[in-house]
């Protein structure tokens, strides 16, 4: 499948957060400030790509080879949980500053539905390894794009005169809805 189509599709047309509803928890939780949004995106991107590669290999060489496709959910989530542990350990040694900055968000990447979602989608869409990696990178970019855009919007929202009942999460969700509407404009692109 055309690589450009995969990339444009994943970043804009089928944006992982705004169209597919994956990765909403960090989207709402981390997007209050631009700097944390960017840090989170980096960590997610790293885990997403690694996870897609490892789960692809496991699916094709172990699960499918032995007719164990029904163990997909368990195997994939264990891979992701282990990768996150690994990333934590490596970060602690290599860049303690970044490790501190990410804080609680690092273990939370395990429950980021976007990562498990992308791993499963790669298998469902029947991509080969190269297409899968491109798909994962593109989705990470899409995730980052949505997060950064939203953080920008929320920083502005904080300064506005929002009616009391809508303050906080409600107005954030409505803003996300409008952002999603904007992204729908990309539908004709591919």
């Amino acid at each position, binding site marked *: 499948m055309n690589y450009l189509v995969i990339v444009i599709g994943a970043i804009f047309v089928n944006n992982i957060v705004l169209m597919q509803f994956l990765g*909403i928890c960090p989207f709402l939780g981390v997007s209050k400030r631009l700097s944390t949004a960017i840090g989170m995106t980096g960590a997610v991107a790293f885990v997403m790509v690694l996870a897609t590669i490892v789960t692809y290999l496991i699916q094709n060489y172990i699960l499918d080879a032995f007719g164990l496709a029904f163990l997909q959910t368990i195997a994939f989530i264990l891979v992701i949980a282990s990768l996150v542990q690994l990333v934590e350990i490596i970060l602690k040694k290599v860049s303690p500053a970044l490790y501190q900055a990410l804080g609680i968000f690092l273990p939370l990447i395990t*429950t980021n539905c976007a990562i498990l979602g992308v791993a499963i989608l790669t298998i469902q869409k029947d991509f080969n390894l190269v297409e899968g990696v491109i798909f994962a990178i593109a989705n990470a970019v899409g995730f980052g794009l949505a997060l950064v855009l939203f953080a920008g919007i929320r920083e502005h929202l904080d300064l506005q005169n929002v009616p009391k009942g809508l303050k906080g999460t409600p107005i954030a969700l409505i803003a996300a809805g409008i952002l*999603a509407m904007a992204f729908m404009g990309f539908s004709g692109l591919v």
Partner: protein
Amino acid sequence: MNQWKNFTKGFIKENPVFVLLLGMCPTLGVTSSAINGLGMGLATTFVLVMSNMVVSIIKKQIPEKVRIPSFIVIIATFVTIVELIMEAYLPSLFQSLGLFIPLIVVNCIVLGRAEAFASKNNLVSSVVDGFGIGFGFSFALVLLGGIRELLGSGKLFSITIYPENYVTLLFVLAPGAFIVLGYLIAIINRIKKD
């Protein structure tokens, strides 16, 4: 522990979606119709109750450091069981819910309850908590799904309520999910204040 209070807290006071703001992904993703919301809610309730049950029984046997991985394996097992049962006996619901069924395993509600409640409480309380939070979750999904289905397609539980010419398609699409949820949370916040 007052089990009645334990059970009902999941509906309004500690509603996982509207108050705790957990489990957002399936909440937005499967609520394009009321029946999908109900299906997902019940599937999640099953996983919640079963995993709370198992975690509560074996909690003393699990060393502190491998708590989370063990809980994840337990939860993943029940999610796969629900997947297989749905694929065998409820194929059309299985098709509609699609990707979100395996995603129950990363639903923060399930891991959250195992960690925050089941690992610290006895069997009965944990099971009741599972049902309470699960039904509260289902309630939220059906409410959201119902509103979106009604406004976006004129139907409720697939029964046509008003003609298709008057629908606002936006509500069954992505933006509609965010917007309706936003307003629902605002309303529930208001109700809770009183």
